[in-house]
């Protein structure tokens, strides 16, 4: 009987317990009209709630206070990690200093003067008789001919900024790219100039190649051709030799498509990532005509607007050397085009996206020496920008592709030594030919250099 008495209380109290969990006035404790036996129950629930609230609040405050004094970060960390952290901070400080563009002490530095837009920028004093001067020099210096072993003397010019890249991967691929160029040039008797200086502060960035090319032409009269190549271009056909005989009547050899240039006026009709300039007066004149859109600041910005307006597909940004050259050749077609050879029979510049996935197929079906879409001469990683922070493509895709191109080319070099890479991505190599006590038979077969012979003489 006693139990029956309590049962209704229980039920009503659960109903009352679900009431508002707020702090209520004791006077109003009996907010709901319940029987007296149910009141303590409801109040007990409220009391419990209040206690829980207080507990939570106290716990929160304790944690805050403890954090302030002891700190959460010290839970579980050892001294070694603290030393690591110090070292990392120290190194980061040094790296930041190295990466910064600031020079330590320049007390004599005059403030940089703004280029006067009314004065036309020039690359240097005007020379009008370079062909004559060069001829004279060559005749006086027969031991430095412009043709060696029947081949015209070529200088490959490339470069990168003097500061470290924004990230370490960029420098690593610059290193691989220069090794790749060293290999090709050693096999083909070409000298390399790697430029890391801004010779002209007005023409910085992609324009820096102009003063550099001019300076090198004038300092090396024995050079017949100067070959500019971007730092993000890799040689992928180590056997292919540029067919210079095709260009005897031309002074500029550049990869592109005539219909894109003349009909569509596209801003990517030509590519200035890999081109050849003959060392002659015509080239000096072209460089002088090319340079005016380059000086940085308002000139370059304004020129950028003109180029975007006149060339198809060009986004809006400051003037770049490629668009400027296209615009120049289009607007002064009659003056220049007869000496310009637009080459597309082989990949003097090969846009990477269509090539890198087919390397395995190429290795199966074709052989080096073709230079065209079957075995591309140059694979150029336009848009990847590994030296910066952000490229136009996914980083993974770019780096995989660059590594594949590098290995693809390196395999051709290692073949002479009896090795090749284990796959196109990995760094390790494996032997493909047993060693022998008579190595020279194989050297005769495999040495890439032995395809070109000839005599030494000067040709004007």
């Amino acid at each position, binding site marked *: 009987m006693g139990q029956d008495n309590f049962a209704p209380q229980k039920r009503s109290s659960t109903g009352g317990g679900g009431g508002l969990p707020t702090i209520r006035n*004791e006077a109003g404790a009996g907010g709901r009209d319940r029987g007296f036996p149910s009141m303590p129950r409801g109040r007990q629930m409220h009391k419990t709630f209040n206690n829980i609230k207080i507990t939570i*609040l106290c716990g929160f405050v304790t944690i805050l206070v403890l954090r*302030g004094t002891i700190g*959460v*970060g010290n839970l579980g960390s050892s001294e070694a*990690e603290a030393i690591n952290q110090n070292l*990392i901070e*120290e*190194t980061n400080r*040094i*790296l930041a200093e*190295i990466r910064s563009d600031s*020079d*330590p*002490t320049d007390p004599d*530095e005059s403030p940089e003067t703004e280029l006067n837009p009314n004065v036309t920028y020039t690359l240097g*004093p005007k*020379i009008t008789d370079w062909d004559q001067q060069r001829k004279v020099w060559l005749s006086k210096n027969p*031991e*430095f*001919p412009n043709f060696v072993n029947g081949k015209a003397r070529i200088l490959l010019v490339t470069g990168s900024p003097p500061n*470290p890249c924004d*990230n370490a*991967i960029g*420098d*690593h691929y*610059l*290193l691989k790219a220069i090794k790749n160029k*060293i290999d090709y040039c050693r096999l083909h008797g070409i*000298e*390399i*100039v790697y430029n*890391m200086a801004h*010779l002209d502060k007005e023409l910085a960035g992609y324009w820096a190649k102009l003063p550099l090319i001019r300076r090198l032409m*004038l*300092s090396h*009269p*024995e050079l017949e051709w100067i070959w500019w190549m971007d730092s993000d271009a890799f040689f992928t056909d180590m056997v292919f030799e540029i067919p210079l005989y095709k260009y005897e009547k031309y002074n500029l050899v550049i990869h592109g498509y005539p219909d894109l240039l003349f009909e569509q006026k596209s801003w990517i009709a030509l590519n200035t990532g890999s081109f050849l300039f003959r060392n002659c007066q015509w080239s000096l004149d072209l460089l002088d005509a090319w340079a005016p859109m380059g000086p940085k600041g308002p000139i370059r910005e304004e020129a950028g607007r003109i180029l975007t307006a006149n060339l198809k597909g060009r986004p809006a940004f400051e003037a770049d050397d490629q668009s400027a050259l296209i615009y120049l050749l289009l607007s002064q077609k009659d003056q220049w085009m007869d000496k310009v050879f637009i080459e597309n029979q082989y990949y003097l510049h090969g846009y990477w996206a269509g090539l890198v996935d087919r390397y395995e197929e190429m290795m199966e079906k074709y052989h080096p020496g073709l230079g065209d879409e079957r075995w591309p001469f140059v694979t150029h990683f336009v848009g990847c920008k590994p030296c*910066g*922070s*952000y490229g*136009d493509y996914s*980083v*993974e895709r770019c780096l*995989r592709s660059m590594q594949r191109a590098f290995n693809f080319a390196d395999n051709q070099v290692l073949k*002479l*030594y009896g090795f090749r*890479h*284990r*796959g196109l*991505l990995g*760094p*390790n190599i494996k032997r493909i030919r047993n*060693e022998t*006590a*008579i190595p*020279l038979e194989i*050297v005769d077969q495999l040495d890439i250099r*032995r395809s070109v012979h000839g005599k*030494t003489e000067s040709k004007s």
Partner: protein
Amino acid sequence: MIGKCLGAQRCRKIHRTLRRCKVTVFCFVLTVVVLRGTIGAGKFGTPEQDFVEIRDHFYFRRRAGTHRVLEEVQTTSSDNEVASDTNAETNNYNDFELNKVLVDEESDDSKLDPDKPYSLGPKISDWDKQRSEWLKENPDYPNFIGPNKPRVLLVTGSSPKPCENPVGDHYLLKSTKNKIDYCRLHGIEIFYNMALLDAEMAGFWAKLPLIRTVLLSHPDVEFLWWMDSDAMFTDMAFEIPWERYKDSNLVMHGWNERVYDQKNWIGLNTGSFLLRNGQWALDLLDAWAPMGPKGKIRDEAGKVLTRELKNRPVFEADDQSAMVYLLATQREQWGDKVYLEHAYYLHGYWGLLVDRYEVMIETYHPGLGDHRWPLVTHFVGCKPCGKLGNYPVERCLKQMDRAFNFGDNQILQIYGFTQKSLASRRVKKVRNGSRNPIEVKDVLRSLHPAFKAVKVSSS
């Protein structure tokens, strides 16, 4: 509960007080928290810092597992959340982990026979004869490109994997450009190696199988010049005195008494040396190699070397100590063809040289190659590509910059520019362009030295 002890009236008073206290405490806490969120409270920090710290703590935990001391720490200002796979579809090079991508696609199926003694390759005993026959059959590839000028191949290299130090690759790049410049001026070809030819001879021993392979594949090369990747040319005008070595097959920087009498482990340096292509070189490599194979052999050999050589610390066998030991113990066999050169710095220890560059510029001129204007400045112990060297990072990197600029200045001056200072990356013009560049005689003479002249064929 308390009410039972004290009485109902008291109890109610206490409850009231308690409730007021609760309210007070609660408001106080709220005030503190809000103030902290806005102003901050010294070492208590702000909630944003808390969040950042906690995030960094977890992120650091994840990275610390790779045991790298020097690594790029994400700047906290970046707005990328900590993704579990930072490689996926990002256009930001800073987020990328390259080592995940560079993976061998084929497995290593070469089997190493542990009982077979190590050898660099099949024994060749008539290399001189093979080579001279080849040279006769191939007159277009002579081993001498001038009367006193042998064909030289400079061999250097580095690891195919990115450096552990974030700026290591940049310094390798600069060092390579430096070598390209010297070699272009002196008619020397370069072979830059990025492949490990023999896994057993890894580390400093990797040069031995490489040198052997290159000698055998390039019979027209008369001298192979090995140069470490941390050595830079600092005298662009100095030409090696080849006639001095016409009877020698191996030229290293060092001192006879330190090697043969004292057996000092740094009595010579194998970071930069010349080796003539011939049977003698192959035999020397075969005699040099046995201490190299990694593992037990190298460790045991290391102990022998530490015991036998003066001042050598305890570590595994390295190629330099092994060379000292070889020469000191087998002098009669090798000594007469080894020239230990110290008249110029074929290898120049950087610690003694880098602080004096300004003095050198004032007092002397390029072309001397010795203590007055060193040919090579070799940054032994700096290890810019690795984790930790023997010297403080800052000193090493700054001095490498200075040495690079010291050498680069000499090239730029030929073209009419100079570095603004040894610490600067900027250049300035020192010579204006001319309308008659041919007549700027000094310039053209430096660029067209006699030893680069081509033999004109008499037809």
